[in-house]
């Protein structure tokens, strides 16, 4: 399957929910420590991957999300705290939403209420946004350190989760004034979280303690699974849209792993095609088993689960 190289360091990759051959990659210069960013749009073609459109940003692009309502709408979270909405069809910046006072690190489009999305920032807050509005609807302030990740519940349009460096994962309902659940999920900073797409009570978290934990929010005193296998901090976890128990993860140990969290031997596959920290992983909603990953090795790979990403 194809590989695509770019001059910056890869931070995030997302499959389009509308076009099965399209994906977006957020990249940053100098590992995202200083410099510019570039939001790439890539198309899979028989001859390999091509980039029909790219958007340059004045600061690192840390994360991106496709709109769930418009196939040409793409959002980027960038290092200066701004959220940028791009029109892929006209290759233009539609809106620049600049409210976060620190790095915007994560963005997630609401899959059920398709006109809204969330951003998470190193200013310790999350913000709820809606299409067509120039200001955020709400700011969620509770975390006491950087918020690294935000994820909408796949079934409940008001419910989302956040993962923070304050060692807690929180579950929120936008109708409520405060978070509705605080899970001290790990002993170290929590870098990522994602909901199960089949069971809306199940959520996974990944942290600098190298572990992935799977939780049932109805009884979250203890995780229902602890997935050990990564050797450095877990940067991103993602539940499969096609297989209830499958989780994909990527880590500072440079590998991408696939898990079946309910199985005794949970680690299903370990992909070691990246040569630097692996920061982005995604699974296609439209093509079952299609995986994509990106890394600081300046490449994005797309491959079918069970095959070697490097095999062309």
């Amino acid at each position, binding site marked *: 399957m194809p590989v695509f190289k770019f*001059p910056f360091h890869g931070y995030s990759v997302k499959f389009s929910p509308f076009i099965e051959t399209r994906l977006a990659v957020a990249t940053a*210069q100098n590992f*995202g*420590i*200083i*410099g*510019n960013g*570039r939001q790439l749009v890539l198309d899979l073609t028989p001859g390999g991957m091509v980039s029909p459109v790219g958007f*340059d940003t*004045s600061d690192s692009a840390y994360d991106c999300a496709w709109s769930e309502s418009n196939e040409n709408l793409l959002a980027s979270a960038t290092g200066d705290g*701004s959220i*940028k909405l791009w029109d892929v069809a006209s290759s*233009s*910046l539609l*809106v620049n*939403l*600049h*409210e976060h006072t620190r790095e915007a690190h994560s963005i997630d489009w609401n899959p059920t209420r398709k006109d809204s999305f969330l951003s998470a920032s*190193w200013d310790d807050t999350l913000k709820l946004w*809606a299409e*067509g*509005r*120039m*200001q955020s*609807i709400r700011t969620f302030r509770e975390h*006491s*350190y950087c918020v690294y990740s935000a994820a909408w519940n796949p079934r409940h349009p*008001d*419910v989302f989760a956040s993962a923070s*460096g*304050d*060692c807690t994962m929180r579950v929120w*309902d936008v*109708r*409520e*004034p405060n978070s509705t659940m*605080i899970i*001290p999920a790990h*002993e*170290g*900073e929590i870098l990522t979280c994602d909901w199960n797409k089949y069971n809306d009570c199940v959520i996974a978290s990944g942290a*600098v*303690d190298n572990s992935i934990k799977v939780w049932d*929010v*109805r*009884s979250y*005193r203890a995780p229902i*699974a602890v997935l*050990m296998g990564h050797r*450095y*901090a877990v940067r991103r976890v993602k539940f499969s849209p096609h297989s209830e128990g499958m989780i994909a993860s990527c880590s*500072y*140990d440079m590998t991408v792993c696939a898990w079946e969290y309910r*199985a005794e*031997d949970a680690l299903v596959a370990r992909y*070691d095609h990246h*040569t630097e*920290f692996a920061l982005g992983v995604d699974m296609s909603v439209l093509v079952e088993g299609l995986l994509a990953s990106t890394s*600081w*090795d300046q490449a994005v790979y797309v491959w079918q689960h069970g095959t070697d990403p490097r095999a062309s």
Partner: protein
Amino acid sequence: MERCCELHPWLGDRDRLNELPDVAVVGPHAPDIRGHDPLSSLPGEYDHEQIQYPDNQGSEFLRKFHSGGHEGFEVAWNEAQQPHMPPNFQQRDNPSLFSTFDQIYDGVNAPVSRWEGPPQNILSGFLHQFVHSNQAGIPFCPATLPVMGLSQRDKHCIRDRSSIMARHFFADKSDDYINAQVNALLHSLEIDNDLQARGPPHRRFPELKQYWNESQGAAKFEAPHAEDRWVAEYDQFRPAEGPESWANSFEQQYGVDSWASQFEQEQSQVSSLGRMTGRNISNIAAMEQTRMLAETLAQNEDPKFQNSKFLQFVSKMSRGELIVDNNQVKPAVPSQSSGWVEEFDQQHNNNINSWADQFAGELPHTENAWIREFANEQQQRGNTEDQWVNEFSKLHLQDWGDEFHDQMSKGAFGDGPTDHWADEYDKFLEESLGPVQKPSGSSSGIYVFASQNPYVGHPNPLKEGQELFRNGLLSEAVLALEAEVLKNPDNAEGWRLLGIANAENDDDQQAIASMIRARDADPTNLEVLLALGVSHTNELEQAAALKYLRGWLQHHSKYGTLIPPGEPDVLVHADVAGYFNEAARMAPEDADVHIVLGVLYNLSREFDKAIASFQKALKLKPHDYSLWNKLGATQANSVQSADAIYAYQQALDLKPNYVRAWANMGISFANQGLYDKSISYYVRALSMNPKAENAWQYLRISLGCASRYDMLNACDTRNLDALQKEFPL
């Protein structure tokens, strides 16, 4: 202004400007990149840069990122697209740097200077080294770099991001190590790692502390709702709050001991490591670092990590095959250069098996158990999937989506309806919060009395309570003191002691509530103000804590004059700390002032200073067990678990029935991965107070981590006899 702009045609362009292939190529020794503005001729560009970077220098610098070294962005882009590129390192931002490495490995003798070229290139390469220094857990070597011309904004950006990111990719290292790494980077770039830097997150305990207290507060707040099963259930099972809950008494106990100097010595060693700078590292230290680096490298089994050219470079350097001479890297004895390859292979081969074995050994063995358990639970729960979400939504707001769609269907799209939607939301929030009066922090401030109290009707419950407290029967003391304040609600002393007893009994919410009542009864009681300051610090409620600590100084007969008259609208931490530092200068022998300073520095997460303050106070009050506990908790917070254990031991020597300190010891051991050891301490704490729900939870975790599954049943059935027999201290 930026956020309101709609479809400004130039917005996209503005973002792109930084990326344009630069017309001016900056030479290796550009005399002054600051005054140079090659893009100023582009219409409107200057203004936009102004918007982005108030400090124009920054934009200058960033704009040149591509100009130096690369032919421009497009070239770099095309290079990256070339097929048949070697898999790694060829398409770096800094080809010159890595070609240097390649030359060295290929045995090219010509000495190559490393840190030359356009500043942007050097910075890229330097950051590259920093990032990769994690791969073998090696200290990153500071270097003397040419003047970069970084603006303040750039510097802050590098400082903050490298601090935060280093904690992700160096997650397996200690804080001291991480700080040294970051400092080495920052000092090489001449960036001051001052107090404004985004520090590490405070670790587990304060978070848990806040979390438990919040959830406790939430449980009270929401108690009337019958459907709040999960809250109640959760509350019932809540494990321990953090160990550092040190809203304790401040008895006057004086004396001097010799431990403190020893402590300070250790302390200064630790902090000097943290303050390591590029400037004061001698060559010897650099060699030592390189040696350590190579050792760690040898221990890292992953072949991929060992293949990193940077690590090979470092390994070579540590064996003297490469030397740094006048900032140039030179092969010292070229003929030896093949040796490292064999050595690498050897290490590599030796380690493959052990790595696999180790990995197999690390796989969790408990998965079967929980899967079965989970499956059972699933069956029992049946069709309750939606329940938890409904339970969340106790306020029963009309669904915000329905409302939005209603408005959508009315035909209008644009700012109108969505504004309305947001307004509705604000209104709802106001309405729903209005009547219940949003609590300012997590502390509700309402004291909850026990429903049944045998001491009600006791002739002198205060005296009884004091007696029970002295004997360490905290729960009983709380009941007696509750009886006292029920009888005499204006007794400040009764409320104060009740607050202290509650704090020592692991209940800071109740402690704060009692202390607030004590303050109402006697607004100038110094001990009460101090205790409130400490409790709010535990709760991470900075504003409230500062208010009480300032109040303490204000009402103090000796220091009252230090506080300027009038109530400031906003209390700034630095101001309050300033007052107390002034007070400490006035009266260096006043332990209380040092204690408050320690508390203040905990609030600002300056743990080194906090530890120093507590140590000063301990010199004056060496027999204050709660002070030892504070010191221990602070050291635990700054990830010095070994020191914390010493401090807790001191507290226990002074007060052997200090249950919390026993549990804290266990936590500190567990924190260091010494789970076996932690078990005995938890068991000891539990044998003294079997009601310590938290300690049971911690014990269960440690049993699991120490693979003592055979004793889990004893833990679950609360079989203390069996546990004590199995885990004697």
